[in-house]
């Protein structure tokens, strides 16, 4: 794990070249270590809130533009990865979210100019300005100097993000595996659809940068099958039967692990993380509405708001799962779980060495050569 990188502070002693390699997935020990370093004075709760805000913002801007799910998912992954190496206190979450979105559009060839993405972000952040707009598309009339400033900041963060992925523009998404594996498991289309949605939501957690895409897909299929048990009858009998069979198969270790190259323990861990996310969202419905949820009713109710409640606050659709149902599900899961596997230790090298204070000092300083390697040592050949 030697990166050929020494931690020497004085410029005269900086090596003339050093290497950084792309670390596509993180172990939970690494995530814990890195998060703690970046968290600073923030509590874990505050960190989580900030994370959800940013992910929701990416979702809002991205779906308004009409990006496919893979673009949004990767953007969220990039956001999570960024804050493993850079503290939230130094960055505005809008800048990071938009930069992540921009990099993602390049990775998935769903290109959009930063200026255009920025315009849509203004419409999301300032809906009242968008409503007043004269253009057909609802573009916000933003002061050009502000827009240009914002754009420059987004591009600056973009550069940092590119370095956190070592310029490796490949990414494998779990979505197609949800469908492929779901079909092979003979799950109902409805279950697969539900699992697909859970996969979308899983990108609001760090799961996709911890597990390979097939495991994430299986984890979401497993979670969907568990949630199906919460559904009040009558669901069509045949469907309920196949769905519970999926739950049974994936719960136990078996041949399927070899076929799909994943382990039952991982599916359980993923299910817990995803259900935690659902519980959190079910308990805090207001936290899930617009980042600019008005604290008091708007003094000028525009015609647009009349489809919402009389207070002018947007009403989200009724949540299909109750928090206490989900908590009971978790308890039930804990009751007959697989024994925990030995945790992968942190290893001798500090993963935050991938990007530490020295590097930030180096950025923009034009000294020496940096080698960006697309993969960890030992992974040789074929697109790495």
């Amino acid at each position: 794990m030697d990166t050929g990188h020494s931690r020497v502070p004085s410029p005269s002693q900086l090596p003339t070249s050093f290497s950084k390699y792309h670390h596509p997935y993180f172990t939970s020990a690494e995530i814990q270590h890195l998060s703690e370093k970046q968290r600073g004075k923030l509590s874990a709760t505050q960190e989580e809130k900030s994370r959800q805000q940013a992910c929701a913002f990416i979702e809002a801007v991205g779906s308004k533009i009409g990006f496919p799910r893979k673009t949004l998912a990767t953007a969220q992954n990039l956001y999570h990865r960024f804050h493993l190496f850079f503290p939230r206190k130094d960055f505005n979450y809008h800048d990071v979210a938009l930069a992540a979105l921009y990099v993602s559009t390049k990775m998935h060839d769903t290109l959009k100019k930063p200026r255009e993405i920025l315009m849509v972000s203004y419409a999301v952040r300032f809906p009242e300005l968008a409503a007043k707009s004269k253009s057909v598309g609802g573009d916000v009339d933003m002061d050009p100097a502000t827009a240009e400033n914002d754009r420059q900041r987004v591009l600056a963060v973009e550069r940092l993000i590119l370095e956190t992925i070592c310029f490796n523009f490949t990414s494998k998404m779990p979505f197609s595996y949800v469908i492929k594996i779901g079909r092979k498991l003979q799950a109902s289309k409805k279950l697969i659809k539900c699992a697909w949605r859970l996969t979308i939501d899983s990108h609001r957690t760090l799961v996709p940068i911890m597990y390979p895409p097939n495991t994430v897909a299986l984890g979401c299929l497993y979670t969907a099958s568990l949630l199906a048990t919460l559904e009040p009858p009558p669901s069509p009998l045949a469907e309920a039967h196949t769905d519970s069979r999926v739950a049974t198969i994936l719960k136990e270790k078996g041949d399927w692990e070899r076929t799909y190259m994943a382990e039952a323990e991982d599916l359980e861990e993923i299910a817990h993380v995803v259900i935690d996310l659902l519980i959190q969202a079910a308990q805090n419905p207001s936290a899930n509405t617009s980042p600019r949820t008005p604290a008091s009713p708007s003094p000028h109710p525009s015609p647009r708001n009349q489809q919402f409640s009389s207070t002018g606050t947007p009403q989200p659709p009724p949540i299909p799962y109750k928090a206490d149902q989900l908590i009971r599900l978790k308890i039930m899961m804990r009751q007959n779980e697989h024994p925990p596997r030995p945790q992968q230790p942190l290893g001798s090298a500090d993963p935050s060495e991938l990007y530490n204070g020295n590097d930030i000092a180096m950025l923009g300083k034009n000294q020496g050569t940096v080698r960006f390697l697309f993969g960890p040592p030992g992974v040789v050949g074929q697109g790495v």
Partner: protein
Amino acid sequence: MQFLGLIRKLNASQQSIQKVVAFALKCFSKCGEDLWECIIEECQKGSINHRINILYFLDSLCETSLLAKAHQPPEQSSSSKQANTALYVDYVSRDLTQIVECVVPVGRQGLPNLPSTKQILENWRTKRIIEPQKVDEVLLLLSSRHSAPDTISTSAPSAAKPEPHLSRSEIFKRIEEDRERHKRLRERRWVQAQPHPGPAVPSSSTFVLASFLPLSDAENAELALDIEFENEWEATSDWNEDDVEVIAEERELCYPHLRRKGPVSDEEYGEQEMDIDLS
């Protein structure tokens, strides 16, 4: 009529298209039907190049109609006669077969317009601008027709009017126009369907978890999310050996114990590195 003049002058440029689209939308409530009839007429009478220009114009018209509808305040749309329509989109849907038969007439003369027409139709299908069933019908019509080009040209000598040969400059112009238009279409190809927002789906729904959105059993997906899922469902192949290979590779990246052990030197993966010279 003024509109007829505009349509006749329509060329392949974005500028020209936007101009006519704006006019058409402005006058929709007064004389939308009449304007529509002009469009159909021009489609039947114009040259082959003109007809494909009209089809691209219709594409822009549909897109802009839907955009305009999406930004209308809800109460307005329910009271006006635009209640359940998306302006011109319904006309396009209703007369789709007729339009396509004009733009891609039977025989060799229709061939230059065939690939672009298919592209536009598929775009309309993916984005649910026109219902997939309707688009499928028309696509079937086109493909069944063109599977037997020889019989058509020999068996109907009197049916087809003799098409004037395109001049050399017209051909080059057409090539350039096609290139520009394909480029533009490619830039928009990935954009997901933006279905008509109904009162059941408030604009804040994007902030809610996907799993919390109403899960309908119906195949007629209303949410952009579900439309994308349906498209993926149709397009995704079954689990096969290629997937096994891809996943095996990803697992190597994820789990160190799966990686090959051995001496790791710079030379070994020299080809994969990307040197960024910061000086």
